[in-house]
């Protein structure tokens, strides 16, 4: 999966949880939780979706690696190479 594809997948998962936030409104370097107003339940749902979409388990210890869109893209690219 290319980087744009991964990013699109992350934004799509985010959209399911925060439908009123437009993809173009997300600053890739800033906190996703703050920009999309995600509480802990929302974030868990996001992580679960991403795990399902990419076919991986994401341990709680790795949550900080999903703080921004850029971080998500890097993490998912590294962790789910079979989707490349």
């Amino acid at each position, binding site marked *: 999966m290319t980087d744009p594809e991964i990013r699109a997948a992350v934004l799509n998962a985010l959209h399911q949880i925060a439908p*009123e936030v437009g993809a173009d409104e997300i600053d890739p370097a800033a906190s996703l939780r703050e920009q999309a107003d995600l509480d802990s*339940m929302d974030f868990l749902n996001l992580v679960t979706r991403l795990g399902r979409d990419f076919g991986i388990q994401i341990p*709680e210890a790795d949550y900080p690696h999903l703080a921004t869109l850029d971080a998500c893209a890097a993490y998912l690219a590294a962790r789910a190479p079979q989707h490349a």
Partner: protein
Amino acid sequence: MGEFRMPSLGADMVTGTLVEWRVHPGDPVHRGDIVAVVDTDKAAIEVEVWESGVVDELLVPEGTRVPVGTVLARLRPADEAAPVAAPVLEPPVPAPAPAEAGALPSAAPPPQAPGISVPIFRPAAKAAPPVAPTPATGRVRASPAARRLAAERGIDLGTIHGTGAEGAVVRADVERAMPHPPRVSPVAARMAELLEIDLRTVAGTGAGGAVTRADVERAAAARDSAAPSAPSGAPASPPPPLDASALARDRNAAMRQAIAAAVARSKREIPHYYLWTHVDVSRALRWLEARNADRPMEERILPAALMLKATALALRAVPELNGFWTEGAFRPADGIHPGVAVFLRGGGLVAPALLDADRKDLDTVMGELRGLVQRARTGGLRGAEMTSATITVTNLGDRGVEGVLGVIYPPQVAIVGFGKIVERPWAEDGMVGVRPVVELTLAADHRASDGHRGSLFLEKITDLLQKPEEL
């Protein structure tokens, strides 16, 4: 003959709109079956019937707004013969399935302003038989929001191609089918608003059929001279909104008004007292981390679930916080059903009940909590969840403020608040360290309990959170 009436789905509810019937005359119903969808100012709620029998007659058509208590349908006992045997041509309505986090209709509903009920139509349960999009009687499968919009626009649902699950018409489909609105000059638009003229009904005489100020004034004059008189007893129809965003603003405004009325009443009538304490949650979080490490993501438990369960168990020890103040006295509730405050995206609040939270294991509590939050935000809350809360718990999660002192929802007598988990210096056994700490608060009705009992309650929660393995 049994009656199914418009339920009160909240202390502040005066009227509700019967959006959709889920049963037809001749259908057998059992206590607890969902028979209709009702729209309050806050959300579309699935409503259950509390008697068993057979549906005899539906008295109120879809789309009608009626006061709470209005008889909506009549039921007859199961063994009585129907007055007229009506052939049932329609396929049975599938039983609603619990909404799952990932299970959305194939055409996702368009992003809507928060406060509007997003279509609650969900993919049919696996056990349901396949349903044709337009059955013989012409009843079209459509979401409540699609129905409402189509009714307002005068569009026949049967002419719209549905892109939802099993060919259902969703709101986006209706929007696509709507004729483009006529061009309207800003002056004409403002005039139409002031005179309460529906622009869709105005013939435009300007260039290209545009609606001018003169056209609007003409329409207003024609309307006022016709002076129709509504037959008494007919339900009043709400003024037609000009467009989807006006509709969103109306609903948002209506919800804010409902909330405003409820909190104003609460503060006016309930003598609140407030207590707060800090809880060391280091043991709870360590236990949670270890437990979650071996579980797949779908089974992870959040601190919020632990706090909810601890609150529910603590209420067994202090039952005067779990019940209702009505007619000058406290009535303890039969069960412990904490209402979970869920903030709707972009504004607004509902607090549906998680029934019997004290008796459910932690995994079940977490699963139901996920479901409640999901359905509170996207639709599908049930009548029982809206009316059964015996106390409210508000948890501002880990991005909120340190503490919250809430406003009690009458007729409840207490509201429990959990703030953000913050690292704080903590002294224990003569040593100082840093611990994750949460501020736990109680706002309670002084008519039903006093500070001593309130303190015992908070102490109990604190103790329970020190032994998370026992929750």
